[in-house]
């Protein structure tokens, strides 16, 4: 029994590789209403909830970066927490040591992560699957150690970390800093998601997915696989790095132990539960990795980890291909049921289909 490339793609990426079933019009309506709700929300919530929602968007953006690499590119990474941390530190160092305005640190953080990611993508070309996982995992383990390293303490502040000033809202807006950070993050998120959506739909995106689905066939069609794979690494690190920069604003503090292997693993959990190769799925992943540990914590302090694990298992049993795959399968069932109903109606009324 061999699998066709298409089946292989479905197995690897969940339902993400299958063509979207929603009509564009419905999709744009959904996106529009989601953005509208997101825009009104901070005016009605307490500042703690606003802070949490900001964090959800930041995690969602970081997971989007991982998704570009893993969901679309088919390369596995256990080290995206390191890019997140790198982005956060670039922002913190630029703001506190060089007095750079906060909004300028975003492109800098993204740019540096892009360069580091691309450079890391070069050796990654030699490695596949679990061996690549180990190499990226080395990145995640090495970063906190490097940040604590006494030779770099002048920049990184060593174990103490760096305090980051919270960005103030512009004077003409009557909102507090938490709300401003929320809107700022939302704006960055929308731009980045639009960019990712276009990237995925473009010729480049198709090339990236072709390499994921069948590297040899893709190379035979003339796709420069090493180039695209390396660039995917860079772009993915760019997205996660920008998320890290936003994370530094939100936490108002960066320290080496915030960026351990556990962060990388929770990105991966968010990605898989949200749905590989799905853009909205990333936000579901962000919601999950932010809220579910908190919920588990309130149920029982001693067994919080166990409850988190059980919830994870329940979600993956119910939705093995993530939230996105689940929605897509549900939608497919619904539309098949609808079309069958119209066929039956047509037969009853004596019309030919």
């Amino acid at each position, binding site marked *: 029994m061999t699998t066709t490339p298409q089946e292989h793609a479905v197995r690897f990426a969940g339902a993400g590789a299958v063509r979207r079933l929603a009509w564009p019009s419905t999709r744009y309506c959904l996106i529009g209403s989601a953005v509208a709700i997101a825009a009104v929300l901070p005016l009605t919530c307490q500042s703690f909830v606003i802070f949490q929602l900001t964090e959800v968007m930041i995690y969602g953006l970081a997971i989007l970066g991982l998704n570009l690499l893993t969901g679309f590119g088919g390369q596995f990474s256990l080290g995206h927490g390191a890019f997140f941390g790198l982005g956060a530190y670039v922002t913190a160092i630029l703001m506190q040591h060089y007095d750079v305005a906060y909004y300028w640190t975003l492109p800098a953080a993204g740019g540096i992560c892009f360069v580091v990611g691309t450079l890391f993508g070069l050796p990654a070309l030699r490695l596949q699957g679990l061996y690549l996982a180990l190499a990226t995992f080395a990145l995640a383990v*090495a970063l906190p150690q490097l940040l604590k390293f006494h030779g770099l303490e002048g920049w990184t502040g060593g174990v103490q970390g760096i305090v980051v000033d919270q960005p103030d809202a512009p004077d003409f807006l009557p909102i507090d800093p938490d709300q401003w950070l929320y809107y700022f993050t939302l704006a960055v998120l929308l731009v980045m998601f639009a960019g990712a959506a276009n990237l995925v739909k473009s010729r480049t995106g198709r090339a990236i997915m072709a390499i994921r689905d069948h590297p040899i066939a893709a190379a035979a069609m003339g796709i420069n696989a090493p180039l695209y794979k390396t660039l995917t690494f860079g772009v993915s690190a760019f997205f996660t790095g920008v998320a890290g920069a936003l994370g530094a604003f939100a936490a108002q503090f960066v320290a080496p132990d915030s960026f351990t292997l556990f962060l990388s693993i929770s990105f991966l959990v968010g990605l898989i539960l949200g749905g590989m190769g799905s853009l909205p799925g990333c936000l579901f992943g962000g919601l999950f990795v932010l809220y579910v540990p908190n919920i588990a914590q309130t149920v029982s302090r001693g067994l919080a980890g166990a409850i988190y694990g059980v919830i994870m298992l329940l979600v993956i049993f119910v939705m093995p291909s993530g939230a996105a795959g689940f929605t897509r399968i549900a939608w497919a069932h619904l539309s098949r049921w609808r079309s069958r109903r119209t066929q039956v109606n047509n037969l009853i009324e004596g019309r030919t289909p």
Partner: protein
Amino acid sequence: MQLLLQQVMAGLANGAIYACVALSVVMIFLAIDHLNFAQGEMATFSTFIAWQFIHWGLPYWVAFIAVVAVSFIGGIAIERVLFKPLHHAPILASLVGFIALFSILNSGDGYIWDYTIKSFPTPFGNKPLFGSVLIDTHEAGMIGVTAMMLGLIYLFFRGTRLGLAMRAAAANPESARLVGIRVGWMTALGWGLAAAIGAVGGMLIAPVVFLEPNMMFGVLLYGFAGAVLGGLTSPAGAVIGGFAVGVIENLAGTFIPYVGRDLKLTIALVVIVAVLMVRPSGIFGRAVVSRV
């Protein structure tokens, strides 16, 4: 020279721990074709059960054998209950399963046996071996047991029908099923074996690193690194890889000036990635060849 020898021996002693873990990582990889992130937590859980048995007054070796048996059954149960339903899910879904299992076992350990550090007995004693200061009897015993397990595993996989069936089931499930191998049960058996080997590893490590819920986490990182360095398809490679990681880490810490002490783990990982550049499937691993 004396310093070098001393550091190499100390590295080998640490390496024996990593080799134990690497071996169980490779075992489960051979059986299920996945890297099990919860491996270390399963071993810790088994070690806690052993501690409980000994605490209740059972002799060491009785507790040892009982725990290996319990772990074997537990491993099979985990596969049947948790991972069989995920068999047809996308590949990465089982990764979430591993992480969830990790989280559940880790938090369960802490809840049942709390987070205080417990000492764990060793059957080999802690006297210096032959009066030498380089290595003590427990470390020597640990290396000996690891070597013995490796030998048994080799005999099992190369010399028995069941071992052959398990290898076939992991390498090519469809063809294996066509020749009448019950692939599902082979996978479950692989889990059982990996859990039992992990339990042995945990009980050997516990006297050195002391028993607590996070005992295995650091060790597991090195164990993975050792397994990947040696090649995930080769049990002997994993053991050698584990020893190599221990030695590299110790030598880097001692002999590389300025950065060595703070960054010895980082340096060890850089060395491993550099080796992988030259041998992308590990030193002793088979390169994966796929039919187009």
